[in-house]
């Protein structure tokens, strides 16, 4: 009998513990997980809230209004003043198709549904028709327009950043789409084979081609052999496969700086093999390849392949071919680290969040991580200056401003090369860093991308306020 009582009590305790666990988990969920769940764009309640709330506006760095909401015939209307121009940065906010861009990431601030305190709830009960918070961006509207003009009719992305602070000054991905008419044209836009919905700058993965040589060059410098002379014959055989140069007659004897300026493939392919997979991958990962990036917009991780690739692919990786893939934003951050003496700035777009009354709720603090030695950064700076002064990137040169950069012409499965340019200016005190990617342009980086970068740099240096 006694053991029966004991066992009954054991079962009772078991059941009660089950209930206590549920209570514990429910409280834990509510305190630590609920916010993230609630902000999910699939949560239809976000929309219901918005029927009562005038979504906050978004301004550029000079206070130019880019987006605002107003009540028209009793209904809240979202006015995208520049429509296509910001289709990837600001993004859309549609009842049927969800949200993207800043509209998604900062939704809870824009609808002011964030502070779910008892007092706010009481206020909301009494006066449910609130007004959301405003965002102030780092984007320069004039530069954004200029960038978009320069990219007109192309496919690709161009981004400008302040390499010291990480402020994104302009970000364009083409083809873009009209936010105003997206609802009606959803099927056409979303099924378009050119993927206009994709933000190529942050989510597009591309073969980097020669701009990846910046990373291989870091490896050469770290290995301590930048001055070693290499004999370029126009092709090199790695593990049975031949890697050829653009100009098959061969560059002759070169050191790192000269090889970088003429973008010699055989030099960097052989160097990559000499550096070894582990070291090169380590360099790539310190520059955020294979890493999750924290940014105001959704990003895709750049890829540096794992050890299984073999020597031929490693050589190809050294010149940015093979299975290396990167996003334009990642390359822009890499070049910013060079410009900023080895400190990679974390990019951001939202400078501050302001209440409708103009009080600052939250403002961004610049962050950077040290990824290169100052010496490495200075050496790369010099080499990148040489590329624009006398190498493959002369088309990016400006009068009176020392531009530094690197061109890339990436072969890919489409048969038409991607044209790349990454660079910054002025050399000594960089104010702007730029990446230009022209997808399947079928032309070289120096010819197609460098002139666009030059114009963006020129405009940014002369017009962007600090």
């Amino acid at each position, binding site marked *: 009998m006694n053991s*029966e*009582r004991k*066992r*009954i*009590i*054991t*079962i*009772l305790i078991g*059941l*009660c513990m*089950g*209930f*206590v*666990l*549920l*209570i514990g*988990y*429910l*409280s834990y*969920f*509510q305190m630590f*997980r*609920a*916010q993230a*769940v*609630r902000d*999910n764009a*699939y*949560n*239809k*309640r976000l929309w*219901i809230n918005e029927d009562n709330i005038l979504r906050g506006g978004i301004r550029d760095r000079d206070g130019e209004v880019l987006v605002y909401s107003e009540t028209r015939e009793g209904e809240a209307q979202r006015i995208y003043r520049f429509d296509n121009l910001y289709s990837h940065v600001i993004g859309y906010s549609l009842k049927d198709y969800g949200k993207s861009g800043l509209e998604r990431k900062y939704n809870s601030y824009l609808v002011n549904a964030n502070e*779910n305190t*008892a007092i706010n*709830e009481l206020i909301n*009960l009494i006066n449910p028709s609130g007004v959301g918070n405003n965002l102030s961006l780092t984007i320069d509207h004039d530069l954004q327009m200029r960038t978009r003009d320069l990219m007109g009719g192309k496919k690709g992305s161009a981004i400008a950043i302040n390499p010291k602070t990480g402020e994104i000054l302009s970000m364009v991905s083409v083809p873009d789409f009209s936010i105003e008419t997206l609802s009606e044209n959803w099927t056409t836009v979303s099924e378009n084979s050119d993927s206009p919905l994709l933000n190529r700058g942050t989510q597009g993965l591309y073969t980097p081609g020669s701009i990846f040589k910046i990373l291989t060059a870091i490896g050469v410098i770290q290995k301590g052999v930048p001055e070693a002379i290499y004999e370029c014959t126009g092709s090199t055989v790695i593990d049975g496969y031949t890697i050829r140069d653009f100009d098959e007659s061969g560059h002759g004897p070169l050191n790192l700086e000269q090889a970088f300026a003429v973008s010699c493939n055989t030099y960097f392919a052989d160097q990559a093999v000499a550096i070894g997979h582990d070291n090169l991958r380590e360099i790539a990962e310190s520059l955020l390849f294979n890493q999750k990036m924290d940014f105001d917009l959704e990003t895709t991780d750049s890829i540096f392949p794992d050890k299984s690739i073999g020597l031929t692919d490693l050589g190809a990786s050294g010149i940015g071919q093979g299975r290396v893939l990167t996003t334009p934003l990642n390359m822009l951050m890499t070049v910013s680290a060079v410009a900023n003496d080895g400190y990679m700035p974390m990019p951001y777009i939202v400078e501050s969040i302001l209440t409708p009354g103009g009080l600052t709720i939250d403002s961004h603090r610049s962050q950077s991580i040290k990824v290169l030695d100052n010496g490495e950064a200075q050496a790369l700076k010099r080499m990148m200056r040489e590329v624009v002064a006398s190498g493959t990137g002369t088309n990016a040169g400006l009068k009176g401003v020392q531009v530094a950069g690197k061109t890339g012409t990436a072969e890919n499965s489409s048969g038409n090369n991607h044209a790349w340019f990454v660079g910054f200016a002025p050399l000594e005190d960089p104010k702007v860093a730029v990446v230009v990617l022209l997808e399947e342009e079928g032309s070289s980086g120096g010819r197609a991308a460098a002139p666009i970068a030059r114009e963006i740099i020129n405009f940014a240096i002369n017009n962007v306020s600090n």
Partner: protein
Amino acid sequence: MNERLNGKAPRKLLFLFEILSLSLIFLYSWEGIQTETYVIAVGLVLLIYFSNFLLARISKGDSYIFLIVCMLISIGIIMIYRISPDLGLKQLMWLTFGIAMFFAAYFATRYIGFWERLTPLYLIGSYVMFAATLLMGSRTHGAINWINIAGVSVQPAEVTKIILVFLLAAFYGGDEKYRRMKNAEMILMMVAYSFIGLLFLQRDLGTAVIFFGVFTGLQYIYSEDRRLIFANLGLAAVGGISGYILFDHVKVRVTTWLNPWPHINDKGYQITQSLFAISEGGFFGTGLGRGNPSFIPLSYNDFIFSAISEEMGIFTGIGIIMLFMLLVYRGFKIALRQDNQFFRIVALGISMVFGIQALIIIGGVMKVIPLTGLTLPFVSYGGTSVVTSFIALGILQGASEKRGKAGAANE
């Protein structure tokens, strides 16, 4: 006597809750108050007042379990009415009928003395119920567990739950002749597993887990052959794993439990909508009528806990969990005080059914465990669920009264 006097204070609190929540209902539907609103309000108060009054008069047994359940049905019907006034009215009807059945079950338990001698009947009855479901059943939400009798949909498995409790109680606490048969406990285990297997076939996973839980619990307490308990647990593990491999519907439950977010538009829809609702509510809820529980599929039924959490906050959700904990506690206390072995096991079994069912569905909608479709007893909408739960409660009430020792008639 002393206990019954104490029962008055919580009863007053219960009415306070009803008045408050009904005023909220009135506030919420202020612009469109209809006769239904009055019917619900007056009906609910009268129903609960008279049934409590009546019970205090006739039963000398436990005075808390019915109060606890009254609180649960009050929260439930107010939420159901807020989601759909039509269903609210129907639920009031079911509650009235359910409470009538509660008294019927109470009297049946109290005045009929041969319950422990009906083992074969329970066995046959269970299989008949299963056969009826499999032959005439119709499929809703993936499970075949409804049959149609004279225009009313009935879930036989709900009834079988009670029969199972009686079967186990009769075996362990009633007539000894079955227990003395060769391999009796082994045969009982096979019978239990045949039930569980049939429930698997009907895709009624939640009920299958309840059956397993009640059987295992009682086996743990009463089995003389302790090795069988390990055999049972081993068999359950094997069964669970092969169920996962063999049945896609089991796989789906596990996938959406581990990570529903990639399947948010199809198979993960229900659970993610449930999580949205719970997270929306915060601690105090959006307020009655101010949330959107109708975004959750079956918000008035399987997911009523999420709907309540959204509008009344997780404090009410925690309250519901604690009410179930109290109900289980009282049920076990009834069992410990009961000298009659058969009724002690009946009390244990019924408390376990309530407890396990609440744990499974609340844990399911919170994504603590894989989601299996079950009603939350007394809170969810549903005729069969309400009526059978009240019958079970009536039996528990009957079992709370003093009785003679088991088997006295036999020995």
